[in-house]
């Protein structure tokens, strides 16, 4: 009898234990109401959170100017059928036409979504994809690995041209090793090559691609380990060199696209920047092996006169609060500055909004490693 009793308890315990793993739902988005912004030709923006590598935690947030609604983690709920969500390491984002493009690096893809609903339109496979830029109905994606196009053993990267209507890769072109950010000026695509996989033999060039023939026409020698690249309205390119993280410091270079040569450089640690109207907003954070700490600067460059301004663009309270400055975007109409803090990389980050007078408008908790922003135009319609 006792035996039976024991087994009954045992069986009951097992059943109880087994019955308790709750159904696992898609994690819903979270909404916070922040101060609204004046709707201009811009009515909001998407923020892509990278997520730490292998955590599969890339996520999208959306801030709506009219209502002040900040929606965290919108992708999952909009796309319940997308296996394992947005993916691993969101590296770049852009809106072109009515479509939202997210480059998800470690998921080897470009996720194309409806810019209004953030519903998936297509997944374009691009191995080790890095950045995206747009021109004349095409999207250009840089990628470290062109296994299929360049062969198994080529260390070179490539740029893929995607038709923004059919969302197919139309053409590809080989560039330098580990290409990073790109910009289009006139009919030329400029690609910053890093060569980061083979230290100390970094790349030191910007590749120039003729968009009509989609062939590389030249390489502009700049400096080692290039990363960020942006064009201003005066036919110049600003390109950052990350240096070698020890002897050679990070710098910012200016390339004249009329001559395709370097015309100026700034001794300014540059990890991220954006150019809006006549101003470049620069975040520099460089690890010092001497002090074992990060040296951080928030600098401004007048791109019309190519001069470094005295000011920085953040109030001291924000500078003090930010642990790891990471993403930067400036609304082209209101000139509100959006800057992100990636914190310790494995916890949710913070987004700060500062108006053009340097006053804090709000701060909000984001996903892990908030990094890349894309402004949405009022004219955007559903696909």
């Amino acid at each position: 009898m006792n035996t039976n009793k024991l087994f009954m308890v045992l069986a009951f315990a097992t059943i109880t234990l087994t019955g308790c793993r709750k159904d696992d739902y898609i994690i819903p988005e979270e909404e916070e109401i922040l101060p609204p912004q004046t709707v201009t030709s811009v009515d909001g923006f998407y923020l892509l959170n990278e997520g730490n590598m292998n955590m599969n935690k890339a996520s999208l947030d959306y801030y709506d100017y009219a209502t002040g609604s900040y929606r965290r983690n919108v992708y999952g709920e909009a796309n319940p059928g997308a296996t394992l969500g947005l993916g691993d390491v969101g590296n770049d984002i852009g809106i072109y036409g009515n479509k939202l493009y997210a480059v998800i690096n470690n998921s080897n893809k470009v996720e194309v979504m409806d810019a209004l609903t953030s519903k998936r339109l297509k997944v374009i496979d691009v191995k080790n994809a890095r950045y995206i830029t747009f021109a004349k109905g095409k999207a250009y994606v840089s990628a470290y690995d062109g296994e299929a196009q360049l062969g198994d053993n080529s260390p070179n990267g490539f740029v893929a041209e995607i038709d923004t209507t059919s969302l197919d890769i139309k053409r590809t072109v080989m560039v330098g090793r580990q290409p990073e950010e790109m910009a289009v000026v006139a009919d030329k695509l400029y690609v910053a090559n890093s060569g980061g996989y083979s230290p100390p033999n970094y790349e030191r060039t910007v590749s120039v691609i003729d968009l009509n023939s989609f062939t590389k026409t030249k390489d502009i020698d700049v400096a080692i380990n290039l990363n960020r690249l942006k064009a201003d309205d005066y036919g110049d390119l600003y390109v950052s060199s990350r240096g070698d993280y020890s002897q050679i410091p990070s710098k910012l270079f200016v390339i004249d696209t009329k001559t395709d040569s370097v015309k100026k450089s700034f001794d300014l640690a540059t990890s991220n920047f954006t150019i809006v109207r006549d101003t470049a907003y620069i975040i520099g954070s460089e690890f010092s092996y001497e002090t074992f700490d990060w040296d951080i600067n928030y600098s401004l460059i007048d791109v019309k006169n190519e001069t470094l301004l005295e000011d920085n663009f953040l109030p001291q309270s924000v500078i003090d609060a930010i642990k790891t400055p990471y993403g930067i975007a400036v609304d082209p109409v209101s000139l509100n500055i959006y800057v992100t803090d990636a914190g310790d990389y494995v916890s949710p980050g913070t987004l700060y909004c500062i108006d053009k007078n340097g006053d804090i408008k709000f701060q909000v908790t984001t996903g892990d490693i908030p990094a890349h922003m894309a402004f949405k135009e009022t004219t955007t319609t559903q696909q």
Partner: protein
Amino acid sequence: MYFYKHKCLWVRVSMLLSLMIFSFLSPAFAQEFPGNAKDSLDIIKGFALGEVIVTATKVKFSLASPMPVQILSGKKLEKLNSLSVADAIRYFSGVQLKDYGGIGGIKTINVRSLGSAHTAVFYDGMSVGNAQNGQVDLGKFSLDNIESIELYNGQKSTIFQPARGFFSSNTLFLRTKAPQFSKDKNYRLKPAFKTGSFGLVNPSLLYQQKLSPALSLSASAERVEAHGRYKYNYRKEGGYDTTAVRQNGDITSLRTEMTLHVKLRRTGQASIKTYLYDSERGLPGAIVANRYHHVQRQWDRNFFIHASLHNSFSKKHNLLANIKFSNDYNRYLDPDYKTNEGALDNKYYQNELYTSLVNQYSLRPWWDVSLATDFSLNTLSANLYRFPYPSRYSYLGALSSHMRWEGMDLQANLLAGYIKEDVKHYQQGDNQSVLSPVISVSAQPFKYKAFRVRAFYKESFRMPTFNDLYYTFIGNSSLRPEVTTQYDVGATWTIEPGGVLQSASVQTDIYYNKVKDKIVAMPSSNLFRWTMLNLGEVDIKGLEAKTDLGFKLSTKLLLDLGLNYTYQKAIDITPNGSTYGHQIPYAPEHSATLTSSVLWKNWQMNYSFIYTGERYSQKANIPVNYVQPWYTSDIALNWEGTLVRIPVKIGAEVNNFFNQYYDVVLNFPMPGRNYRINLAIEL
């Protein structure tokens, strides 16, 4: 959504507790049927003598230990459906196994949330650390030639051991099968074969030879081969439901070891052991959206030679000398990481020279003192860019005293260490010197001998590993060592009433640990690289309860039951941290195991159950970091007897019987239901 999970958990926990209380009350049964006691005992003796002895020694041993000890040995170990030491230690309380899944997936132990580098692993009395990453992959120790696994919170409760044995926060001892010969035979030959899911082909051979009355040899070899493929599933309610096959999880490994045992005059003994493990495996990688296949590979080769001498030169004196040389090679190949020289191909070479001398002297019949001194030299070289080529010189000393009175044991240790760092290039880590005290006591508070209480206080530290300090771009030579402080109070109670309940033992501990300057390694781009994180301070409060029960249900039917429960609050208390007050990553609040086996004639059936509660994959305890609880049931059926006068053991196992898909480490899916069959004979 996340709250009613908690609620549900409490139901579960209360179930477990009631089950345990039920077990506590069970002695009452025995008293109800006193008449049966005598003859049933005789039957047990005749039927399963070995079993009873094993249980009895085990209980006696753990009863007097001033530090909590958990032991799996002999038959008890064989009852668990375990391929490797890693599978078996999941049944210990207070233990989290970090398991990356599959046969080739790396498996490391984390005891009481102190972190995996705080558990020292000893193989036949010799530590098998890894100065490079502080991680010992327990998946590579097959259970085939293991006689016992012992886990000590704090340290092993003897003062006669190398200094290293005292320095870690926790110690795990693996003991291989020592030569045993019957009277009429001077050799033993034990071939065994296992096969099953994942394409497992696992032959092994144990050979023991008596060369002379004083000299014996033991050799063993084992090969593991598996393609490592298994199905896994990721699904969300009302969303995606994707089943895929785990790729690139293949492994081929060969382990050979040989030991020569020498008995010296009177009480002395010496041994010399060589060990070689060689493996190649695929790294199946993290499963993330749009990426189900990885191509990275890893090779490991571990070699060591170890000589040990134990002798005494007078009745009051004992000496233990050890010397070991080890050489470890590790290669990591990433074809996706294309450099100018082709695929990324990192090679790491580690050497260790280790010497230890322990002297123990009996001052009084009730008082022993010992002095243990260790020296070790660790070096690491690698074909990495900007690699500093570090060396580490460690000088460790432990002065110990052990006093025994009627009903009381008191042990005190004073540990002193000096660690010197040296690099050929770049920034070297700081030299460290430490002094830490340990005090432990075990007492019998009442006349009743079966009940004992114990307590210990221990300070320890761990050096940052070579990877923590020097790994190119990730390492940080300004890292501080981690410091732990442990407080533990516990009690053990053992009875052997006879009758239906043959034996019962209960062991409970509550503990409070503090970790300062904790270095947390989070998986980053691949299994082999980590993001270093100084988590700061952690406060760990826990409770462990453990009970083992032996029932004799009828004259031929025996039931063994073991229950373990762990409650743990491991809280990040880093000042000004954004996650202050949150449970640290991967530490479940509740975890429990149940093991049971039924013996009937030559048959044995085992059922075991493991439960690990909800956890968070990252520092912030928020919904996106939530990791589901998991629980698996393993079942085995064994037959042991003789066929054509040859002792044979045949077994069949079903693991993860209810086919639960789960992750121990986020995005590293574990296998669903899987099978294994074993055959072992003795010639």
